């Protein structure tokens, strides 16, 4: 029998009526656990849509505190939250948004030392971090764990989204093998960003995460989408696994497709 309650059926009715969706897909979401790295401009829409859609457990890791300059593009944080930890601030709103979802805030920094422990219980990881160092750490850790990942980034008016199934499709390091040196690429703070641009990219990340979690629609594997928000032009770029990728080399044998 379906584990969905009458209240679930009503809450999720608009996605359940989709021909691509099903009670089974919704039940898979309810059983699923997602970890979102970063509760900022990308993390806000990702967390809102995943919690709203009915993911059973949502973890959110962010060590930063809410700043006044975050508010135009980080709709999970409100003016009175300035000074509060972002993971805690996000969790408070998400708990009100969907009382069926268990939200776990981790007010900590994800780094090489703790990444595996933080991500090991997730069925899918969504990377909403704002540094290349963290991005490569998350990618490498997800490869080592064999955990599907949605990468995303935004810089000025440009954004990128990529879904990854370690051992099956190209990882972030396959697509971008050369890790930029610390400081060589401007951070969001330096480059500037307009809220809705991050909203577009974050919404696409949430969508890809829902595809990975439910199997309702195939995710964008071995490809990434580049968005130019000036013209609203989307470019799908094909990529493929690199035989010499050091991250893919650590994928557990059980998750390898060949």
């Amino acid at each position, binding site marked *: 029998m379906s584990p969905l309650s009458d209240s679930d059926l009503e809450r999720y*009715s608009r996605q359940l009526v989709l021909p691509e969706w099903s009670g089974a897909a919704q039940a898979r979401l309810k059983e699923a656990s997602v970890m979102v790295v970063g509760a900022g401009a990308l993390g806000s829409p990702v967390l809102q849509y995943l919690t709203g859609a009915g993911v059973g457990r949502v973890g959110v890791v962010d060590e930063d505190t809410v700043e006044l300059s975050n508010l135009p593009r980080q709709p999970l944080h409100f003016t009175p939250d300035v000074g509060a930890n972002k993971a805690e601030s996000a969790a408070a709103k998400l708990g009100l948004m969907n009382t069926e979802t268990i939200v776990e805030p981790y007010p900590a920094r994800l780094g090489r030392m703790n990444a595996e422990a933080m991500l090991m219980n997730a069925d899918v990881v969504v990377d909403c971090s704002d540094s290349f160092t963290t991005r490569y750490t998350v990618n490498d850790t997800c490869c080592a764990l064999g955990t599907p990942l949605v990468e995303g980034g935004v810089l000025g008016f440009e954004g990128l989204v990529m879904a990854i199934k370690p051992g099956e499709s190209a990882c972030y390091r396959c697509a971008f093998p050369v890790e930029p040196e610390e400081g060589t690429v401007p951070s969001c703070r330096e480059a500037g960003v307009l809220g809705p641009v991050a909203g577009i990219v974050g919404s696409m990340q949430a969508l890809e995460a829902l595809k990975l979690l439910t199997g309702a629609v195939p995710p964008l594997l071995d490809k990434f989408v580049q968005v130019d928000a000036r013209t609203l032009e989307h470019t799908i770029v094909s990529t493929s696994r690199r035989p010499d990728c050091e991250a893919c080399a650590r994928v557990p044998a059980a998750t390898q497709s060949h």
Partner: protein
Amino acid sequence: MTSQTLDLTGVVCPLNWVKAKLALEELDQGDQLTLLLDPGEPVESVPQSAREDGHDVTVEGTRVTIVKQR
């Protein structure tokens, strides 16, 4: 082949179709699901959704019989 009846009177659109769709998910191809619906929007829209999903649908008043096709 089994046959099942679901009373969806008093259940509004699109929740009636959600309940019918989830009931169909539990059935096998060729099984029959009979729905009791309210007149008006429900009896017009639910059979249409069932047909769009590829099932065989017979409407008799507010009684709708669906034979699962896939």
